């Protein structure tokens, strides 16, 4: 599992811990997690609820900071970044896809997709062009003016994926992307994500569903805040933590 850091290394997680203070009790959500992700991988992180996978997702997504350990994103140590610089990195380098889509109602699909570009300081005309292109990429060119409430679950998640792609980030971070979808829409969304991976995007999916994890080229099992196995689809090399 531990390979020498090359130019293709995107994420480097080293002995990351995360401690929560819940009232009197201290809870270790992560107890020393280490792994690395190369550019172009399709990684699934799987584990039961309470395993720490959500905490790991938040840290990988720069929404939370580890209590200890190192997390390098594209070679940059993230713990020393200011809040604003973390926000900038989220904006440019990470596309989020959430279980419940998290689209803003009252704004059209196009406006939703364009919103990351607002924070990137992109001009209005260019925003509209890029958002339209992203919607085309997920096959929703004909739904641009629709409000999220007028779209089906699968279509909403496509809009959310387009929003994640619009800044051309190297990493797509998906949190139970099919958790709120029926099986047909789920397959549909997984196909979209697989297609993006095929185009070279690094995809990291958090899930508790082994069927979804099975589609990934590499699966990381998490339990009790530790990585318990790291399996590659081709060569099944398993490492115990």
């Amino acid at each position, binding site marked *: 599992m531990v390979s020498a850091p090359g130019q293709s290394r995107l994420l480097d997680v080293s002995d990351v811990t995360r401690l929560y203070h819940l009232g009197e009790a201290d809870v270790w959500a992560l107890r020393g997690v280490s792994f690395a992700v190369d550019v172009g991988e399709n990684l699934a992180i799987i584990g039961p609820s309470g395993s720490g996978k959500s905490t790991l997702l938040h840290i990988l997504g720069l929404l939370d900071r580890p209590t200890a350990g190192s997390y390098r994103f594209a070679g940059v140590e993230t713990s020393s970044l200011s809040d604003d610089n973390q926000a900038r990195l989220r904006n440019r380098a990470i596309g*989020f896809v959430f279980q419940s889509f998290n689209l803003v109602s009252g704004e059209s699909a196009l406006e939703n997709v364009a919103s990351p570009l607002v924070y990137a300081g992109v001009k209005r005309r260019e925003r509209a062009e890029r958002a339209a292109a992203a919607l085309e990429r997920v096959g929703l060119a004909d739904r641009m003016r629709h409000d999220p409430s007028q779209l089906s679950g699968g279509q909403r998640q496509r809009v959310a994926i387009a*929003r994640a792609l619009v800044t051309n980030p190297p990493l797509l971070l998906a949190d139970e992307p099919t958790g709120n979808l029926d099986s047909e829409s789920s397959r549909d969304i997984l196909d979209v994500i697989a297609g993006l991976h095929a185009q070279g995007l690094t995809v990291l999916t958090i899930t508790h569903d082994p069927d979804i994890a099975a589609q990934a080229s590499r699966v990381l099992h998490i339990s009790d805040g530790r990585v318990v196995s790291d399996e590659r689809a081709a060569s099944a090399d398993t490492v115990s933590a």
Partner: protein
Amino acid sequence: MTYAEALRLALRRLRTNRLRTTLTALGVIIGVGSLVALLAVGQGTKAQLTSRIASLGTNLLNISAGSTFSGGVRGAAGSASTLTTTDADALRSLPGVAGVAPEMQVSNVVVVDGRTNSTTTMTGTTPDEAKVRNYSIQDGTFLTALDVAKGLRVAVLGPSTVSALGTTPSAIVGSTIDVNGIPFRVVGVTQPKGGATGFNDPDDFVFTPITAVQSRFTGATNLRSIGVSVANPNQLAYVESNIESTLRTRHALASGTSDDFSLASQNQLLAVAGAQSDTLQHFLIGIAVIAMVVGGIGIANTMLVSVRERVREIGTRKAIGARRRDIGRQFLVEAVIVSLGGALVGIALGAIATGPIGHAVNVTATPSLDGVLLAFASALVVGVVAGYWPARQAAGLDPVEALRYE
């Protein structure tokens, strides 16, 4: 995110919640509306009061007879405690004095013109009255020096008195009226001065020669007041002190004792009236400020609810790259837009309401640019203050917590 982007976002958000936006802005609408209207009425009142005082006479010094003795110590017979006609004569020769009008008053006289009658005040005076108290004639003539010298029973009426008698100026001039049973020939009617209040109508009076009042009514030389007009306004203070020392000498007042008359210049009256109307104005502004504060609380409350409702949206925006200040700006701009939008509506409604409100209290009121700018500026302050705390709360949300929020 630039302010222009925040503005666009806020407008979109407020458009989708039209009813809530309107209700939220209502407090500011009422506050700004009342600020504009009440300020206009206050300013109108002040202007009216000032012009009314100015209409009493230009460069006027008013001397009133004193009614007090110094603690009764010098209350002996023969000590002059009131103004007399000879006092008035003495003032006439002082330098800088343009006119002196001794005024002898008989209150509640009954004026009878044929079958109609009216109760008014009769003032015995001299031709200088017109100059000193700023009267002009619309029909006939004012009192003449000859009228006063001969003590003729002639009268000049105020226009309100004429209408109280149910007649017109042109009809009454030349006819004879009875004042407390004594016949007087009407020689003139003055121009209306206007500005009547419920208690005091400056156009309701009978002017007669002071000599006629002396011989027919009072039989004395005591005056109620003396009006003095000063030739040059810059000499007002100089003439005032000259009058004071002249009267003190004439009344044999020892130094250290207080005057047995009171001397007031028009400027002092204006200052008093100005101070009074300023007090009124401050009171009215105070009411409007309270309305604005209530409006601000309304905005703050709605914004806090809005932050609660949009926790997930805030979390999502942070995830896709919004910084703290981007989120804060979004909510602050929203509050300011509600407030300023309310201000625009409030200014329009206030301007519309100003006329009727002024009419109801007998004041000519027009909304002023000052009032509009003041209202707009206070709405801006209210918006910023009301939006600050909710915006801070939104900006400070932890993205992880916000995304997890149900």
